[in-house]
């Protein structure tokens, strides 16, 4: 499957099937800091992904300012 990372944008290929939460552990990403998106759906940690899936791992953290997040 293809995994698209953001900030900075990077695309990686991951072989085999696994649960989303296992994929995030492999990528060293905390689950509460990203949305995992497949097409127009959000995936929970127990969803099995792989094969032809294209996933976007979108960070949710914003900050650095004190005015208007």
């Amino acid at each position, binding site marked *: 499957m293809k995994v698209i990372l*953001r*900030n900075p944008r990077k695309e990686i290929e991951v072989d085999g099937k696994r649960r989303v939460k296992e994929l995030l552990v492999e990528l060293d990403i*905390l*689950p*509460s*800091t990203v*949305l995992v*998106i497949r097409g127009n*759906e*959000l995936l*929970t*940690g*127990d*969803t099995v992904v792989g094969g032809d899936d294209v996933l976007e791992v*979108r*960070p*949710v*953290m*914003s*900050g*650095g*300012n*004190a*005015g*208007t*997040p």
Partner: protein
Amino acid sequence: MKCRKCGRAAALELRRHNAAFCSPHFLEFFRKQVAEAVHRHHMFTRDEKIMMAVSGGKDSLALWDVLIEDGYQTAGLYLDLGIFDYSKESKAKCEAFAASRGQTLHIERVAEAVGAPIPVVQQATRRPTCSACGLSKRYLMNRAALQHGYPVVATGHNLDDEAATLFGSVMHWQMDALPRQSPALASTHPKLVRRVKPLYRLSELETAAFAFLRGIDYIVEECPFAKGATSIAHKEVLNRLEEASPGSKHNFLFGFLEKARPAFEKVESVELHECTSCGQVTTGAICAFCKLADLVKRRTST
């Protein structure tokens, strides 16, 4: 994973609530949390016009969406910081959002008010970028609301933002900042509008999920100056705690608001004046914003 309310496939797991929701029930949960915040802190009424400060990011556009859908009278305020392509893109997102919902969007350019865009301000003053940016935003939000006749400004600060700010204030025991940390800041002077944070009960993950599920086109890229910011480091520490013990951020912030803040509130007693230069409210003779603009003017004219 199943939705707690209907048993269908869940779209989002909320570990701090020990729950998961499908898309429709998550949207319902989110809107209820905003309504609870507005009600609990008497943030605004349906008769008031609300100025919604928007950055083009997930939080402020998600909140604006909730307020519009709930029938509140709103208009947006976008502060153009002049940060290269980042500002161009975020402004375009706000304009498209406002146009698609038939809402007014006021635009203020920091470069006009301070004398230079944020990147030049940073070079000229050698202050941390986020410090000058935050100061400019607070000043311009209040000024714009007064000019256009809005009694209240709503911002998209979420639970993670508030917990990280509190963490930073406690780390340095900033006794002046602690009493001001609140989901709703009252007007303490005729020239100060109220400031409210209706998303303070919702996490960053939740606001991002709401924006995605509502199809809101927000800017995902981070401000180029946010990298290395102290507030980001504080968020990362709190995220590690949250991972080990879900609910930590909530307990930290809500415990402060309910148990500790009243004690700090008694400490604060400041006299407010009108700045002799611009007329906005300050604790001294000249406000911090006018001092910043003066410094930028002197440093950029040489």
